[in-house]
């Protein structure tokens, strides 16, 4: 509100600031280590040398939620694990994004029963859902690229 009003005539400046901030956010996104099950193996495989995730700026998998931007929920979330997940999400600083990797995190997958939360979006707001059981490393990277494209659409009016 305030920024757009003050710099209203100099439209060129605001557009560039948006682009710069979005570019900085997408190129240095640090994921948080939240591997739960079989999808964690494919996430670690994406981190290894054949499908390198550090080309996208995600060199370090930060274990601490206070130091990370992106939470990749890889694997099934049981009802016992759900309050843990919510607490970790609350500890992450803004801006933060959630990527739900695999069938079980997105909607409960094959396990339509008493013990699994049917979709992580019951607990945390999810930005991108990646399908697969488990998704290939290339599929996960395509999901990350989808998330990057979504972030690049962010406008200054939304967060100022």
């Amino acid at each position, binding site marked *: 509100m305030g920024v757009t009003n003050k710099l209203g005539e100099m439209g060129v400046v605001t557009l560039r600031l948006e682009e710069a901030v979005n570019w900085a956010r997408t190129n240095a996104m640090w994921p948080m280590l939240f591997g739960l099950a079989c999808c964690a193996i494919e996430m670690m495989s994406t981190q290894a040398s*054949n499908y390198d995730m550090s080309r996208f700026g995600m060199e370090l998998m930060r274990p601490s939620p206070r130091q990370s931007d992106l939470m990749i929920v890889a694997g099934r979330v049981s009802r016992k694990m759900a309050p843990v997940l919510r607490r970790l999400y609350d500890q992450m600083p803004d801006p933060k994004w959630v990527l739900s990797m695999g069938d079980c995190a997105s909607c409960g997958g094959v396990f339509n029963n008493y013990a699994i939360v049917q979709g992580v979006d019951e607990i945390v707001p999810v930005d*991108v*859902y*990646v399908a*697969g059981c488990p998704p290939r490393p*290339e599929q996960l990277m395509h999901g990350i690229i989808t998330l990057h494209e979504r972030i690049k659409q962010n406008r200054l009016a939304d967060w100022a």
Partner: protein
Amino acid sequence: MNLIRGFATTIKHVFEEPVTIQFPEEERPVRERFKGRHALKRYDNGLEKCIGCSLCAAACPADAIWVEAAENSDEARYSPGERYARTYEINMIRCIFCGYCEDACPTEAIVLEHEYRLSFNDRVDAVYTKDMLIDPVPPGGQDTPQVTEPGKFTRSIPEMKDPD
């Protein structure tokens, strides 16, 4: 001494070619038997292979397929035989890509192809309807619904040719 051996190993690899596949600029083609996204096939003359029997929906371990069948008539024919699938939806984020629907289908209508780029912004986007799944019309065939002569396509599993 061990330090030198360790460093020699890593320095040797500096001069070798990196094994990283630069996705998305460079893609490695998947293997022949890879199980990716589904596709509904057609015959050579354009008729759909799916007859709406919903054996795939009964076989699916994750209950990801929804089929509603309707009757064919000769004025508006979608598939050989009596029935065709009016509604055919697969929920991609319930599907576990096991290939059991492919094994259960009697007409080889549903096949798992090689497409794997499936990421969505919303859970509703993940439900693929029939027009998103069906193959394009092969060259030389007509689009469905077709008008056919009566008595020609009465068998559900006929001896008709597949497109190449």
